[in-house]
């Protein structure tokens, strides 16, 4: 019964940790706008956590520069299981306009398994919420698979 309860709760209370991996700040602003009164992602239980130890979903923005890569990986590894990784915007998925730059190490999926990609430059808040909701669902499944 508890397992069921925990699994159900996991899907309803995903806390976000946001990593800026060299982003232009466009996506960062959009992510914050998701929490504003107009879109209010909190009604789904989303909350921005201050520390990776508290997070369930890691939101990565930016093309993952060489400077930021070890920091991104280290921070992701510090998130307790079960965790979901969401890339936000086109940069972490493809490199976007920064693709091929000498300082870009991306895409992120080369280094860690990414669960959800939210494309767009920057993605609309509706799309972000949709992607996060999907991530929450994946989180729930992952929790269900844990022993």
């Amino acid at each position, binding site marked *: 019964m*508890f397992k069921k309860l925990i699994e159900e709760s996991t899907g309803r209370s995903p806390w976000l940790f946001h*990593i800026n991996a060299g982003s232009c700040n466009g996506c960062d602003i959009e992510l914050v706008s998701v929490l504003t009164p107009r879109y209010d992602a909190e009604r789904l239980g989303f909350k921005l956590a201050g*520390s*990776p*130890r508290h997070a369930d979903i890691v939101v990565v923005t930016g093309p993952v520069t060489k400077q*930021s890569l*070890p*920091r*991104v*990986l*280290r*921070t992701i*590894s*510090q998130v*307790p299981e079960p965790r979901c990784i969401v890339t936000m915007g086109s940069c972490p998925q493809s490199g976007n306009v920064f693709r091929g730059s000498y300082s870009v190490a991306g895409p992120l999926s080369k280094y860690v398994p990414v669960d959800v990609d939210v494309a767009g430059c920057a993605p609309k808040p509706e799309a972000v919420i949709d992607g996060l909701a999907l991530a929450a669902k994946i989180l729930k499944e992952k929790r269900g698979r844990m022993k």
Partner: protein
Amino acid sequence: MNLLGNVLSYQHFPIYAIMVLFMGSFLIAAFGENRRVRNILALLSITASLIFSLLLINPVILRGEIIGYWMGARSIAGGYAIGIALEVDALSLFFALLAACAIFVSGVYSIQYMSRDDNEKEYYTLYLLLCGGVMGMVLSGDLFNMFIMVEILTFAAVALTAFRNTARGAVEAAFKYLVVGCMGSTFILVGTAMLYAQTHTLNLAQLAQLVPGNMNTATKAAFALLFVGFGTKAFIVPFHPLAADAHGAAPASVSVIISGVLTKSGIYGIIRITYFLFQSMGLGTMQFLLVFIGSVSMFVCVTMALAQHDFKRLLAFHSISQIGYVLTAVGLCTALGLSAGLYHAINHTLFKGLLFLAAGAVLHETGTTDLNKLGGLARKMPHTTVLFLIGALSISGVPPFNGFASKWLIYQATYQKAVESGNIGFLLVTVIALITSVLTLASFVKVSHSVFFGQLPPELEKVKEVSWGMRFAMGIFALLCIVTGLFPNLVTTYLTEPAAAAAFSVQRYIEAMGFDGSAAVEILAGSFRYAGVWEPVSWLLVLCIALLAVTIAALAGRYDNVSLCRTAAGDSKYQLFYGGEEQSFSQLGGDDMFWGFKHNWRGYFSFMHRLHSGIVNDYALWAVADLALVMLFSLIVL
């Protein structure tokens, strides 16, 4: 057989308790070359002293006798005391017991703590001299003998402060202590001489009979001299910088004695002169004097402690802050207040002893007491950490430890005094006491973070737990801290209330020595009832049940199923979160804590910093100014 019975009569125990310590001191000075002989002699004499004091509990505290003991059977001739007397009432014995316990524990601790120092023979000689001085002072029935014992203990304390004379500031601290301490002793001697000139006696009981009826300018001045003189021994404001200097430099086992026992003997002296010799505590102004100095001591010293970054120096300031509590409570002149103050005196000896020993353990293993250089020792010294935390929580007044029990009584006493006397000033004292308590907690949070928690500096990787003997000594104090905290009723019934009652029965004190006490001014203690309730044992029981319930629930929810770092090299998952950077050593230094508080009071703190200039002339000036003020005060009001 009769001789043996005579020798073992409890009448003689007070002098035995003093003499074994002095004998130990002489014997060690004479035959202490061998380490084992020295240790055995030291342990024997402190144990014997403890046993003699404990054996006095039955006649003095339980049966309520007052032992009047004339040395060499020279007693009274022509109505005047001509012999040297010891007089042991419950108050004296209370302080003697306190001293004997602290001396015993710190002696046990010394055996291993001092094993790395040279000149152990000199250490034990001076140490036992110090202990004997304290014992002699509190059991003495003679004002001049009190002075001599004060001189002996000041001397031994100064010498022991400078014992590790290569340590930073040790000799400097000793010199400052010597100068101001000797000024204090001079004050006591001048006061004694002036009293003698007026009454032609030095016996405390007879002085108590003669002085209050014959108050004149000379006796009033003598009061101020004695008060300030004993004030320097108790290190109350404005003598607190000396305590801080001395504790910072002295070995921890000596700090235990200086803070736990020597300051108490100063308090004892103040109680003796205010309650007995001058019987002036019935005066509202005299209560004001004690309560004022006490409150200032507790507040100024706790704020000074917050600004320190040396472990032992911080503890030293706290020790004066706690003495402030004791003095405040004693100054209330109610049965509840005096009982609470004495209770706090016991507790202060216990938890401050524990804390100093913990600081000594840290110094012994790491070689430093600088809060900015330590950290994370909890993983290397787990037992010391637990013992330190017990002490820290006790001094901060966290239930169920002993500090709370006595502070709770002190708040009640001050507030009750405010209500009874209708004086709103005492209410302020209650508030100051409560705020001081939380500031104490703050500075111990600082210590526990900067020494025991936080990160371990790389150079302290090889630190080990201290030896069993030292942990055992700390354990005794910790156990006593818990016991006196859990059973406040036992402590008040069997220790502090008899002692407080003794302080209020001057007439008995005078008559016990064979003088006429009918003219003694009876200071009314008043009856009291507790305004609140506090049942530590039941509380602890409930807490344990609750904790058990939480733990069971947590274990059922697999709370213990944690992921630990199994690999040696340190997986990045188990590193601390540094905003993504790799983990590196970074410890918040002791100086950087509580910025939000210090910033608001920056004017106060910088003023205090300028005031505590470290120049011995300034401290001497404070002593003279304090004397002038108290003398003015006593000439006007007494």
